[in-house]
């Protein structure tokens, strides 16, 4: 086997691991799964990454089932086991929200909790060895399977655009459309001449928020996943020496990214509620 074929095999392996299971309409008009990224691209916008969506919804359901089961049985007595753990997370979110968000809004804290736990679970899929689940699906005939939903920009951007929508909604609700426009038009330079310049800056600033929010999570998780894939290219007997330290370090990264996503969401929404 020449170096070139090894290289091709490696690159094919990497590409394969980075290909979503996309369902959509082929250019020839038939519906079905795409086999390559290029084919998925040809399907245009109206296609679904079934793997990303499936894992993300599955993990969200797991999160809600666990928390709901605790919420149903929650007592004010001495908490035990799972209730203790859940309450610790709830208390942590509650404290974070209270520190950053000073208005009364019953949506913010549950939103923070959902983001933190859900994103954490999606990121945590990164810790499962890269070949386990794809190989299992390969055995039942499904070729492409990306198991970490947060390495799919659709997933992270889907969430960050939802938050962008909330930012716009609460800005207009709290300050009125005129107040919101005023805020955009009169900062940072309060002079009629600067209105177009201010609008340009502030709208750019506004639009950057969801994009940076979504891309930050995606970029971190994608890079982490990529390193796991690269480690998986090494001979099997040596992989542990790199994958174990990276996995341990990654525990920190996935928690931190989930936390950052949540905190920034809270901060953006707090800014939407308060006029400067």
């Amino acid at each position, binding site marked *: 086997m020449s170096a070139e074929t090894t290289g091709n095999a490696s690159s094919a392996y990497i590409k394969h691991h980075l290909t979503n299971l*996309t369902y959509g309409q082929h250019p020839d008009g038939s519906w079905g799964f795409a086999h390559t*990224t290029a084919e*998925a691209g040809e*399907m*245009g*916008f109206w*296609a679904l990454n079934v793997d990303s969506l499936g894992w993300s919804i599955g993990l969200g359901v797991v999160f809600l089932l666990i928390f709901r089961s605790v919420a149903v049985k929650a007592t004010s007595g001495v908490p035990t086991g799972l209730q203790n753990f859940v309450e610790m997370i*709830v208390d942590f979110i509650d404290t974070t929200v209270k520190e950053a968000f000073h208005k009364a809004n019953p949506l913010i*804290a549950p939103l923070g909790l959902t983001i933190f736990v859900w994103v954490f679970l999606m990121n945590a899929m990164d810790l499962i060895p890269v070949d386990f689940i794809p190989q299992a699906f390969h055995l039942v005939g499904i070729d492409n399977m990306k198991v970490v939903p947060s390495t799919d920009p659709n997933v992270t951007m889907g969430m960050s655009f*939802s938050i962008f929508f909330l930012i716009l909604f609460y800005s207009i609700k709290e300050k009125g459309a005129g107040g919101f426009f005023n805020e955009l038009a009169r900062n940072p330079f309060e002079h009629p001449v600067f209105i177009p310049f201010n609008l340009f800056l502030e709208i750019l600033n506004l639009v950057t928020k969801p994009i940076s929010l979504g891309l930050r999570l995606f970029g971190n998780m994608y890079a982490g996943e990529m390193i796991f894939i690269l480690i998986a290219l090494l001979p099997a007997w040596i992989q542990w020496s790199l994958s174990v330290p990276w996995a341990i370090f990654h525990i920190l990264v996935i928690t931190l990214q989930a936390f950052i996503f949540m905190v920034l969401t809270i901060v953006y929404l707090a800014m939407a509620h308060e006029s400067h």
Partner: protein
Amino acid sequence: MNINATLIGQAISFAIFVWFCMKYVWPPLTAAMEERQQQMSEGLANAEKAQEELDLAMSEVENQLKEAKLQSAALIDKANKRANQIVEDAKGIAIQEGDRLKQSAQADIEQEMNSAKEALRQQVAVLAVAGAEKILSSSVDQNAHSEMLNNLAAQL
């Protein structure tokens, strides 16, 4: 890596999850936690109150003890006085009784003495008459001289 409708799917599921969390997960959990917090603060307040009450009761007990001691001391004092009084009274009565007994004994003695004297006088008169009779033999008229002798005896 293509941007496609997954974006919308994710946004919809995100909205549903947040709604579910807001409706069915967050409120019961925070309610339970708040209730526990309430119970804890109530418990602490109760403990504090109980401690205060205990302190109060302790000082009350001390006061009552002090008062009881004072009262008992007063009672003992009174009892001692009363006992002394009784002893004094008894002494007085005893002395009076003794005096009375002594007096009556003296009176008895005097009376006894007088009657003895009387008897002796009688006997002296008889003896004198008998003596005189012996001396004078039967020359003396007993009737004629008895009055004189009785007078003599009365003078004794």
